[in-house]
């Protein structure tokens, strides 16, 4: 017979540990509290020791990991708060609401810090669009994100979408939010000051998503379809009111701390706030405003009803809190007070229903470092040599097929459903390397991006993890921004499998190395394990969200070719690196080979050179060379600029390698002839290879390699292929 704690997802070892911590057996309510707090989703029990390897410090960091969002300084007493979070499992079951509530949750994490959200991004992974179920998921997720973000009035300015069979049953939906604040308004999720009231504000509590956190910590199986109540319905209108009310409240100075009631609801917000404040809390569940009748204390505690916050105001400010919320048509109820006994005491009216040390739920959770073993598949994938493939004859056709593959094709079908302009700060919207937002009232701009090539991570998680960081930074640099810091969302399979844990450790190590070198500490993040369907894991997908600063927004850059006659240069160097390329994946159906290598010194030099060139106004366009290699990068610059190009490369490499190799640390730039000399001099200073590729001209995409024309495609044709591909697939 399975024991109650086992049904709740706790092991015998963990149950005994609970008894040890309490000095007695837990009652049902207490056991429920432990079960959600000690779930993977809330406790990070399999990842904590590994996450400690991330560099987290820097002069720009105002708040590192451990809070609802990370915060970095952007000068003038201003800062940005940002975080990314996964909503993979709910989205696999109910794509529209799953994705929508993911957006809602991450927005709350940012405005609890006292920041006004200024931008949303998302990073999405799906199976092949040839499947009906995938089309349904893709459509649902995109419209869910669109609905929530548009309705609440925060622009969705960027993100990424990849398609790969490993995500067929387990799509990834990672949402990121960026907010702007004044240093003085920075708020933390802490409860302190004995006797200060504890208030529940926002939506009423229903039986939504009880045990949702546990659900997010399990593999998906056919039975998951049965776990229906775990999916919640979002109310962006309520959240908009909550956002305005919370920001008004913070400005009033009446607040000590606040936190959203997200995963594991009232339990997690109360014990985490008490832990951070070194305090305790007594809460009466009978005072929590409810939407449904007859709820048990544990249901009130575990409910994941959306659009709710826990607020600790200063004593005597209860009425002020109520008035501010009433103005926005919202409820605010005093449900308890802060104590100094370190206990989380739960009352149901007069009756005590639970009493647990707050830190027992948080810090005392057992931490595991499972066995890590290099997966066997890597032998095969690494042994693959692209040279074994038949030689390409029709490069035009290969290029067009790459442009038409959904991973590379234009994502306009997605982002035209997002209001990316609301609040009129979006200076560079979706579709470029990074989005750029102006900071009204200053000359500054903030650039944001999310990146991860999970195919590289599958083939070599260390290198793949490092590349994710490098690519994100490169994207910011191409827009003219200095990279500041990282938020990460680590999506992996079941960590109890040694191969998965190995991938996890390797990826984090690779990311850490790149973060260290590029000076971009990790300030917030999220881990999502158990991304498997019927035993098959997704590709390791450590998504990197990065924020950068443009001191003077006039010195920004975009990827489109600007003017006929401009010269095209390549910063960095192309190598024979077809392993892990989209060329192999799309044309030959091979997810194999060794991914491109990353030389962090060269990467830093290329980024430094490009950024300086942009600041000096030397270059007209800059575009990171990524999936699809140089040929695709040139096509993208040409299409977005609606100007053709004529390129000639002499090289020891084969034409296939020149065109489609995905060597890292490369940026395609264009310059006016007057600036050519200075660019070359600058590249010399930075010790960065800078190779002339050709000229912006005509209405075709022409590429010659060693004197032979290998690509010649009318720009219109390339553009239509690239622009229409996803819409066509969805038919």
């Amino acid at each position, binding site marked *: 017979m399975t024991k109650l704690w086992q049904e709740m997802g706790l092991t015998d070892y963990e149950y005994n540990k609970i008894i040890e911590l309490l000095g007695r057996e837990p009652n049902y309510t207490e056991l429920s509290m432990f079960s959600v707090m000690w779930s993977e989703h809330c406790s990070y029990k399999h990842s904590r020791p590994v996450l400690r390897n991330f560099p987290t410090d820097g002069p720009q960091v105002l708040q590192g990991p451990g809070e609802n969002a990370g915060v970095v300084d952007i000068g003038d007493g201003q800062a940005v708060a940002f975080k990314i979070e996964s909503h993979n499992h709910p989205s696999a*079951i*109910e794509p529209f609401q799953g994705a929508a509530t993911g957006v809602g949750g991450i927005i709350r994490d940012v405005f609890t810090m006292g920041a006004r959200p200024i931008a949303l991004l998302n990073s999405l992974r799906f199976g092949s669009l040839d499947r009906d179920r995938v089309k349904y998921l893709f459509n649902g997720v995109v419209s869910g994100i669109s609905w929530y973000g548009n309705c609440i009035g925060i622009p969705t300015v960027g993100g990424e979408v990849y398609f790969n069979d490993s995500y067929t049953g387990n799509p990834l939906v990672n949402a990121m939010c960026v907010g702007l604040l004044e240093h003085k308004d920075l708020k933390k999720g802490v409860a302190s000051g004995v006797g200060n009231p504890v208030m529940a504000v926002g939506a009423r509590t*229903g*039986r*939504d998503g009880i045990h949702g956190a546990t659900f997010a910590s399990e593999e998906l199986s056919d039975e998951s379809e049965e776990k*229906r*109540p775990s*999916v919640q319905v979002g109310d962006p*209108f309520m959240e908009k009111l909550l956002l305005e009310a919370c920001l008004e409240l913070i400005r009033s100075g009446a607040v000590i701390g606040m936190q959203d009631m997200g995963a594991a609801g009232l339990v997690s917000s109360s014990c985490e706030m008490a832990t951070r404040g070194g305090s305790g809390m007594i809460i009466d569940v009978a005072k929590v405003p409810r*939407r449904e009748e007859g709820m048990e204390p544990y249901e009130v505690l575990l409910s994941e009803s959306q659009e709710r916050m826990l607020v600790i105001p200063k004593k005597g400010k209860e009425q002020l809190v109520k008035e501010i919320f009433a103005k926005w048509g919202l409820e605010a109820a005093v449900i308890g007070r802060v104590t100094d006994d370190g206990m989380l005491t739960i009352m149901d009216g007069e009756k005590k229903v639970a009493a647990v040390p707050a830190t027992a739920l948080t810090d005392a959770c057992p931490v595991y470092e499972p066995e890590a073993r290099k997966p066997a598949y890597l032998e095969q994938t690494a042994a693959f040599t692209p040279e074994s493939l038949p030689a390409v004859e029709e490069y035009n056709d290969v290029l067009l097929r790459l442009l038409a593959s959904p991973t590379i094709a234009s994502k306009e079908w997605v982002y035209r459903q997002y209001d990316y302009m609301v609040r009129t700060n979006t200076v560079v919207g979706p579709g470029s390397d990074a989005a750029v937002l102006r900071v009204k009232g200053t000359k500054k701009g903030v650039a944001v991006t999310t990146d991860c090539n999970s195919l590289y991570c599958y083939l070599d998680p260390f290198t793949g993890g490092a590349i994710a960081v490098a690519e994100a930074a490169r994207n910011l640099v191409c827009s003219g921004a200095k990279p500041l810091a990282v938020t990460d969302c680590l999506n992996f399979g079941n960590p109890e499998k040694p191969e998965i844990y190995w991938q996890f450790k390797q990826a984090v190590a690779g990311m850490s190395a790149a973060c260290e070198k590029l000076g971009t500490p990790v300030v917030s993040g999220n881990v999502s394990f158990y991304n498997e369907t019927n035993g098959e894991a997704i590709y390791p997908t450590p998504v990197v969200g990065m924020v950068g600063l443009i001191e003077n927004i006039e010195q920004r850059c975009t990827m489109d070719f600007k003017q006929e006659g401009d010269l095209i240069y390549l910063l960095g160097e192309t190598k024979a690196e077809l392993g892990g390329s989209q060329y192999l994946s799309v044309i030959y159906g091979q997810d194999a080979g060794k991914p491109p290598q990353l030389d962090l010194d060269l990467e830093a030099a290329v980024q430094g050179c490009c950024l300086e060139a942009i600041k000096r106004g030397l270059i007209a366009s800059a575009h990171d060379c990524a999936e699809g290699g140089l040929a695709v990068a040139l096509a993208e610059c040409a299409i977005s600029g609606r100007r053709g190009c004529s390129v000639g490369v002499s090289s020891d490499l084969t034409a296939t390698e020149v065109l489609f190799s995905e060597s890292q640390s490369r940026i395609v730039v264009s310059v006016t002839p007057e600036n050519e000399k200075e660019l070359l001099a600058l590249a010399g200073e930075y010790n960065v290879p800078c190779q002339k590729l050709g000229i912006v001209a005509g209405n075709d995409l022409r590429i010659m390699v060693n004197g032979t024309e290998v690509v010649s495609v009318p720009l219109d044709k390339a553009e239509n292929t690239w622009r229409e591909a996803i819409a066509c697939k969805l038919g």
Partner: protein
Amino acid sequence: MFRAEIKVMLKKGVLDPQGGAVERSLHALEYDNVSQVRVGKYMELTLDAADREAAKQQVREMCERLLANPVIEDYTFDLVEV
């Protein structure tokens, strides 16, 4: 030929923000005697089927597959021979 009239509603217990908004608005219009407002979808379609049983079977299938999302919604329908 049958005419199917299908109602799709959020499951009991699932938050219905739209219903809540309509209820508040009705109260603001001084219909204080109104409560428990729920908002759902209504669909009508014409179906060429051999008999009522076959029609019923098909409509149920369409609801499960497309018209309702069984994760959060319930559906009911009526069939009228036309």
